[in-house]
């Protein structure tokens, strides 16, 4: 952000080339987001089917998104363990010197790789706590609902501005229908 992004490198045309790659990496890694966000969730009784679903009806990387949703349960378990570990380690610091929990930690260290990754962030507990409290779940559902509301309003503007038969209006309408279908699919799953 120290550069001058608005004028030098922010041309939309400049961005197009690398977007496919960035999209793919986005989907493959976003499961981390899910895992971390889940740490704050005390009620994990939501069935997996509620959070699963096709990500995109418009031909965008469905398999990738399925990937990170599909790994959800494993991530949830690991995330839960990690959050317990985080809590335990924080209470450990408070009661430092009173209890010897080293053996317990050793036993847990082998439980999962993601918990190890998360354990690296223990020094930033305040940051984690704040972030965990703020991230709503399920995140994707919130984003989709909000996007749907925004796009529905935009559709009205498109219809008024450029007409019902315009290519862009039709494109937007199809996109909204795709989003709605995806949502209803999720509900019935």
């Amino acid at each position: 952000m120290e550069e001058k992004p608005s004028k030098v490198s922010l041309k939309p045309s400049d961005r197009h080339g690398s977007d496919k790659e960035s999209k793919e990496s986005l989907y493959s890694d976003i499961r981390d987001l899910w895992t971390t966000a889940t740490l704050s969730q005390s009620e994990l009784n939501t069935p997996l089917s509620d959070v699963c679903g096709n990500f995109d009806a418009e031909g965008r990387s469905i398999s990738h998104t399925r990937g990170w949703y599909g790994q959800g349960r494993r991530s949830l378990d690991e995330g839960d363990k990690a959050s317990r570990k985080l809590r335990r380690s924080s209470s450990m610091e408070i009661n430092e010197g009173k209890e010897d929990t080293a053996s317990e930690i050793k036993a847990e260290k082998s439980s999962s790789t993601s918990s190890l990754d998360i354990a690296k962030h223990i020094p930033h507990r305040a940051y984690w706590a704040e972030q965990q409290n703020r991230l709503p779940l399920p995140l994707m559902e919130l984003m989709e609902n909000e996007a749907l509301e925004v796009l529905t309003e935009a559709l009205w503007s498109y219809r008024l501005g450029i007409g019902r038969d315009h290519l862009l209006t039709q494109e937007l309408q199809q996109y909204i229908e795709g989003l709605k279908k995806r949502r209803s699919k999720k509900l019935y799953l």
Partner: protein
Amino acid sequence: MRLKEGSFLWYLYLDKTYCLLSVRNVKALMEYFHLLDVHGKNTLNDVLFYHFLHHVTDLKKREINLVFDMLDWNAVGEIGFEQFYVLVCILLAHQNHLEERFMYRHSRTVFGLLDLEGDQKISPENFEMYRFLFNIQKQELKDLFCDFDITGDRRLNYQEFKLYTIVRINKLQKRKEKTENAEREKKSLLIKKMSHQVHAS
């Protein structure tokens, strides 16, 4: 300007020191951006942008159009994710009362945004147009140009602007220290009173 409570942006966490989003938050934001990118061009046009900002903030139509023009400096009629990200950081900084810190940390970016003519200078008229984004009062803006326009051309170059952000952040820190000291004094006074009462009884 306020963010709509419960909206997706409202949940994002802006780092208070660096005034940036975490990588995870950026990824989530990217996902959100792609959901809004209906035409698959990795951009938002003015209509989509207007409805997005209208939905998540209480900005007026005129203000939204101003923000769009500021971000779409090349007049392409669309904005990409980078501009979108900058805008979200500005909105979150405003929401969390971190405007001074944001301007200080990202002075080059903010300067670039406010330099509408592209001549490496900010005019008072342009700054006035966008002061609502950075929570700057009218009088403060007047004082700014009086105090920091060292070259005397009635416009701010980057060095002058940077100096302003440093002074503003210093003022903020001093104000904070003052309030903290006052609170500490209050507490110590209260403790003294309490201990005095205990001794008396």
